[in-house]
């Protein structure tokens, strides 16, 4: 089985940001992403997802290293200051390298 290495960029942030974030990702040339509802606790307190204002989303993007870097840089400058947001990058193996 031939596989290629790509980056998995995971963003966990406030659900309120979803619509603007999605626009940003499209503008930065991200081909696809997956969003799931999430809850947890961090430096900005508990995000229990009991209702819309306190819920989080988890955005996952598989892309090449350059795109991951671009998205991470954009999010860092644009959102880190004012919003509850973390992101991390891991290596993943994909089977169809042309897709990502």
């Amino acid at each position: 089985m031939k596989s290629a290495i790509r980056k998995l960029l995971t963003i966990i942030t406030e659900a309120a940001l979803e619509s603007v974030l999605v626009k940003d990702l499209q503008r930065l040339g991200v081909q696809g992403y997956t969003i799931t509802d999430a809850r947890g606790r961090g430096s900005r307190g508990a995000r229990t997802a009991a209702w819309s204002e306190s819920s989080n989303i988890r955005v996952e993007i598989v892309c090449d290293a350059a795109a991951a870097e671009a998205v991470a840089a954009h999010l860092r400058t644009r959102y880190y200051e004012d919003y509850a947001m973390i992101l991390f990058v891991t290596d993943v193996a994909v089977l169809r390298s042309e897709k990502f």
Partner: protein
Amino acid sequence: MSPLDPVLLFFLLGLAAGLLRSELRLPAAVYELVSMLLLLSIGLKGGIELGKQPVGDVALHALAVMAMGALLPLIAFPVLRFAGRLRRADAASIAAHYGSVSVATYAVATAYFAGRQIVFEAHMPFLLVVLEIPAILVGILLARGFSRDLRIGALAHEVLLGKGIVLLVGGLLIGWASGPEGLTPMKPLFFDLFKGVLALFLLEMGLITAAQFGSLRQHGVFLVLFGIGMPLFSSAVGILLGYGLGLSLGGTTMLAIMAASASYIAVPAAMRISVPQANPTLSLAASLGVTFPFNVLVGIPLYHAMATSVFARIGG
């Protein structure tokens, strides 16, 4: 004193469960459904009657209510900024919450009115929609000034197509188009179940309110005082406006309740995007932790008594 309405006992149950850290919670999808049902019920009920109202009156009332929605945050802002010594973004955001309206409080008020057979003007749900909007714009202007690029188009989309407004306006239109006979088959879901749905909703509201108490402890007395003082002031403005517009006693009381209530859905969402520097914990602690429980437990009967005494003195 009449016993507390059972829906309020559900609110207190949620509050107590939250404070005692019970693991009780309404699944998010159920909460969504329950709030959709409330919004649609309120819209439909208003829509059925809307056709019977003279258009000129409704338009005049809508303009007056919009002016009130713009005025209230302008009064709240300097109080928050100077008496509360809050940062500009926080003061503007909280001011916007208090200029706008809480549909949950409105729903509790309709249950209170129904229990006492108090009638109010049928176009109140329309005024409810209208009152949601101006405070958001005023709040954003207070926070950011005119100078910077406001992206009015995106903002209008966010505000006007938010879930609350779409469902209220949609309900109004469907109710207006269908009339009472058309809606009879849906009556069991939207009207007969109203109080049961409201009870479930308030159970979750109690849990959400309890979650705000922690941040309230951190941010001190000022928010508590503001969270009670501001609705008292706003309700007086609402009563004067309702009386001035020639509304009935029920309508005037409802307008006072709407003026006194503070938003916790439409405004926080808009502020989070448009005024990101504002700390949402502060505004939600005030509007949900203080003003919502104050209004539903004490405010509604109090504003009713205030309006009644104004009408008795001036002879309404």
